């Protein structure tokens, strides 16, 4: 079969690579970010992105870019010593990719209302925003695998109970359900716990659709000739589940996870945007965008939109990957 006007086969490698790059950058946020995300420069609120210059006043061209601070030029340096950080909690470091000598500041993407570096916050925020999605999706799909598997395999009242419960979760518009589940948890919550809370919420909200799909696969899987033959040869329930059913369910589970991940990234962003998710001072892409609810910020400071642009890029990449996965699973024999 010829694939339509576009060729997902080629695109999705690029998309996967780009996603991987973004995730690695997020993990190593400490190194790529010039500053600590909560360091404030109160007198430098809403400073526009620092201009990088190559040509100075006298017209000389410099190979090393520099920034102006009160009329003086400061060259941009690589691997500078700065605020200490940890990569993945354990590896300590204090070298940053870029930096300038004090008293100049390097705000490549401007600052927010507290004078915090937007680039550093974007990078650290990615650690929360980008990981809530896939982890939540994995949890949801895992619950879906177990419950859908049980429902399809045992049938009877187990099936009825699980599928009816799933129906309730699918009957509510998604964001309404998200906030209803959010209602069950305390209003004020520590930023560290908020991440776990969001994972729990999205896992509860999203298990029904994967469960339904997995159940369908299990149902069709247990009635196949070769499964019946295996049973006739004395295969146990567990054996059939492990050898014949789960491998088939795996492709569907993977596609579902790829589809759910961006949706959950958005869930985190939306919860935090409305002040019910990750709160200050910990940055997340959602709570960074929240300041745009102020008219003056919305109309004047375009760089506050950058987390939105980042969300957009990640979303597009995820959809490309999910599309490719979907086509690949659909093309599988059987």
């Amino acid at each position, binding site marked *: 079969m010829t694939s*339509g*006007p*576009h060729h997902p086969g080629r695109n999705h490698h690029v998309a996967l690579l780009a996603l991987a790059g973004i995730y690695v950058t997020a993990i190593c946020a400490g190194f790529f970010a010039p500053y600590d995300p909560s360091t404030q420069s109160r007198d430098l609120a809403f400073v526009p992105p620092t201009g990088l210059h190559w040509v100075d006043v006298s017209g000389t061209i410099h190979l090393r870019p520099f920034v102006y601070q009160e009329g003086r030029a400061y060259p941009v340096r690589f691997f500078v010593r700065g605020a200490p950080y940890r990569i993945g909690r354990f590896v300590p470091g204090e070298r940053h990719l870029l930096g300038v000598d004090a008293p100049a500041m390097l705000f490549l993407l401007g600052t927010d209302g507290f004078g915090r570096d937007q680039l550093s916050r974007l990078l650290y925020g990615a650690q929360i925003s980008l990981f809530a999605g896939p982890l939540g999706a994995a949890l949801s799909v895992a619950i879906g695998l177990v419950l859908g598997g049980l429902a399809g395999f045992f049938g009877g009242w187990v099936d009825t109970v699980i599928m*009816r419960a799933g*129906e*309730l979760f699918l*009957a*509510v*518009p*998604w*964001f*309404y*359900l998200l*906030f*209803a*589940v*959010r*209602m*069950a*948890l*305390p*209003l004020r919550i520590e930023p560290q716990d908020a991440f776990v809370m969001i994972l729990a919420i999205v896992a509860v909200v999203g298990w029904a659709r994967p469960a339904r799909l997995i159940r369908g696969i299990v149902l069709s899987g247990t009635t196949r000739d070769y499964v019946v033959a295996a049973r006739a040869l004395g295969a146990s329930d567990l054996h059939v589940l492990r050898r014949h059913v789960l491998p088939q369910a795996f492709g569907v589970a993977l596609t579902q996870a790829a589809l759910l991940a*961006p949706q959950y990234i*958005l869930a985190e*962003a*939306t919860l935090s*945007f*409305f*002040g*019910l998710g990750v709160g200050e001072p910990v940055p997340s892409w*959602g709570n960074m*965008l929240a300041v*745009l*609810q102020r*008219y003056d910020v*919305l*109309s004047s400071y*375009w760089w506050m*939109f950058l987390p*939105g*642009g980042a*969300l*957009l890029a990640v*979303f*597009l990449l*995820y*959809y*490309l990957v999910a*599309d490719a996965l979907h086509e690949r699973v659909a093309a599988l024999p059987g």
Partner: protein
Amino acid sequence: MRYVWRRLGHAVLVLLGVSFLTFVLAAAAPGSLVDELRLDPRVSPETIEAMRVRYGVNDAVPAQYLRWLESIGRGELGFSIAYNGPVGPLLWPRVRNTLLLTIPATLLSWLIALPLGTWSAGRKGGWLDRLTAGATTTLLGIPELVLGLGLLLFAVRTGYLPTGGMTSLNFEELEPWQQMRDVLVHLILPVTALTLVSLPVLVRHVRASVAEVVRARFIQAARAAGVPERRLLVRHALRTAANPLISLFGLSLAGLLSASFVIETIMSWPGLGPLLLAAVAARDLHVVVAAVSCSTVLLVAGNLLADGLLYLADPRVRPERA
């Protein structure tokens, strides 16, 4: 007729289930509005205890739920502690406003998606098809939150459109026809946002369904018999593809209502979304349950409508399920 009753009965059961589930979730929440009052030193413990008794917070959750169900009969849908009044009168204008957004957005997106999807299915690989495919993929990748903020930015920068709310400040002083015009102008931005959200999914599905039919033998036969291409697509292919598309109507509603939550809240449109958000923040139990149930009613009603349409459009559906 039995079919209709069965579908209705099922819908009522789902609604009961959803409202009970929400009630249990919301009641399990630590802290209520009454508890928040405890932080206020001017409110005595006796007053708080009296309030707890009055609002029935002390009772078991099932008993509270039954009382809530009872109040539906009186059109109250419970009691809002934050607004100090029954929930019903709070809810109805909000539902109307949400419908005011979602119905035009649904109509608009189908009006665009049907011709666009059919056309690109007919000219697979043509320039329009490729353009549509690119545009839908891009639109799919734009989260509602970012789309809403982007449109707001556009409104702020150009100044052509109001940047939020449903009416202008001087709304009360306007003539009736001016009031209508005012609301219409305020509708443009959120309806555009919602249409852009639901459009890509619809276009993709219309294209896929029509493309599947176009491959069928009877279309080839009709083409061989000299039926013009346009008539072939509209009269034969689109009609045959109507079935999955009607089902899609019900499904797409879920996404639309969900997106409406975000768009309403960002653009401060006084619909169900902002009401729910404020109620969650204020721990206003009955309002949360009522708003969530209400959104479910809208969704279930849409699905019932789709089922009804399917029943009318396709005789094959009837004997199986009746």
